[in-house]
């Protein structure tokens, strides 16, 4: 594994609300460019905490997060905002991720920011939505459509890494499949890297290349997607 290929590196990440009882214990892993790495674990295993730490919403007790070899946890101010745009989250509940009073157009424009030239329409098309969605409010869209908007919003900042935190768990199977296919195509087309955090066997099986098993805050196993499918296909 050549060093140039690694886009995200997490080293000895230990996160918790108190020193004595960390929720995430000494977690280390690498994410290669263009890869989808899944962190699979039961509810409460600490997966979401890892995501929050990488995104900078929780300060870890110990550990480093390197994006392109820069420790992003140590950076402050304006530079931090710039770097933030390179790692984008997709959360579980799209209704809660969007402002209820803002139209889709406004939401995307705010995310695009100063890098104009790429219109809102282009990003909507990327996720399979047409221009008619621009003037709508979140309350007028279904869950699946809203999640697409969230994906579009994430793409607006030209990210390198997407952190997918239980992205489909709130959706029904049909919508889940459509969204999973969309994400797969986007990854291939734009050479994105995904960190997929979920307890859903189907999503991991379909979307990921490598899988880390997380149990009570520690990584217990690493396997390829193929190995994962063999092991868990019966549990579906």
């Amino acid at each position: 594994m050549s060093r140039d290929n690694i886009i995200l590196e997490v080293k000895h990440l230990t996160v918790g609300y108190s020193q004595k009882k960390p929720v995430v214990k000494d977690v280390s892993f690498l994410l290669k460019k263009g890869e989808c790495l899944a962190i699979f674990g039961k509810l409460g295993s600490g997966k979401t905490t890892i995501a929050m730490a990488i995104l900078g919403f929780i300060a870890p007790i110990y550990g480093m997060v390197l994006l392109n070899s820069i420790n992003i946890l140590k950076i402050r101010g304006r530079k931090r905002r710039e770097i933030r745009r390179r790692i984008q989250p997709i959360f579980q509940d799209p209704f809660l991720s969007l402002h209820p009073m803002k139209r889709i157009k406004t939401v995307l424009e705010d995310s695009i920011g100063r890098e104009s030239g790429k219109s809102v329409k282009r990003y909507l098309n990327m996720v399979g939505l047409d221009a008619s969605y621009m003037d709508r409010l979140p309350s007028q869209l279904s869950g699946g459509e809203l999640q697409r908007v969230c994906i579009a919003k994430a793409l607006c900042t030209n990210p390198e890494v997407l952190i997918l935190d239980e992205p489909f768990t709130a959706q029904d199977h049909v919508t889940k499949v459509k969204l999973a296919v969309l994400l797969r195509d986007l990854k291939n087309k734009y050479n994105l890297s995904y960190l997929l955090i979920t307890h859903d066997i189907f999503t991991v099986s379909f979307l990921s290349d490598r899988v880390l098993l997380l149990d009570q805050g520690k990584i217990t196993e690493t396997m390829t997607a193929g190995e994962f499918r063999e092991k868990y296909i019966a549990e579906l």
Partner: protein
Amino acid sequence: MKIRKIENLRFGLAVLVLIVVFAFVLPVFYRVSPYEQDLSNPLSAPSIDHPMGTDMYGRDLMARIMKGTANTLMVSFLASLVSLIIGIIAGVISGFSRGIISELVMRLADVLLGFPKLVMILLISGILSRDIFVSFFLLACLSWMETARIIRGEIKVIKESLLYKSLVAAGLSFPKVLLGYIFPLLRGKFLVSFTLSFASFILIEISLSFLGLGYASPEPSLGTLLRQARYDPAGSYWIVIFTGLVIIILVSAVNFIADGIKDSLEENVSR
């Protein structure tokens, strides 16, 4: 139940609008001075010349009531605005900062809440300054605490929300997030806060001026007019009645509005 609350709100609003028109728009058409004395015509009953009669200095009562209402409304409005602004600033500072700063603001609020408001009012108006605007500004500075507390609470909740995290993740600058996203969500709270302050300040003005500590003669306000009415001889019923009527209508209207807003927001919460 739901219908009644909305009706209350609308009714209150309608009446308030009428009063505002009465105080600010009507004077354009009814060009009589509230200050001009006419000692040849004191305490005259309502007539065509003077639809509400005159006071003991011969001043037209209707003009005085219009101006008085305007004065009361204006100073209450300004004080409510100042109180709201300070409350928002304090709430935002306390909500977004962590640790000491956040706590300090809240402790300050607690201390000020502990001050007996009536005593403070009397002290300020009686001793510090007779100027109504100064007194009310100081009063506003003592009335921000409730608002601050509410805003702080809301912000603490918002900070944990997925929405906020998405915004921060997108790299949006703090002013943009605060003004563009958070404030719109708090609109309702701002409105309630403002309306309740407004109702409260109207009563404070009337009370203070009635005691002689607010607006000073010859400047009319609903409070001073009421004060004056005490000293007018019996028999000049029109002064008390008209002044009292306007006060009752205004206070009721604002209370209806405040109740209506409170109730309709509560409904949203319980859903």
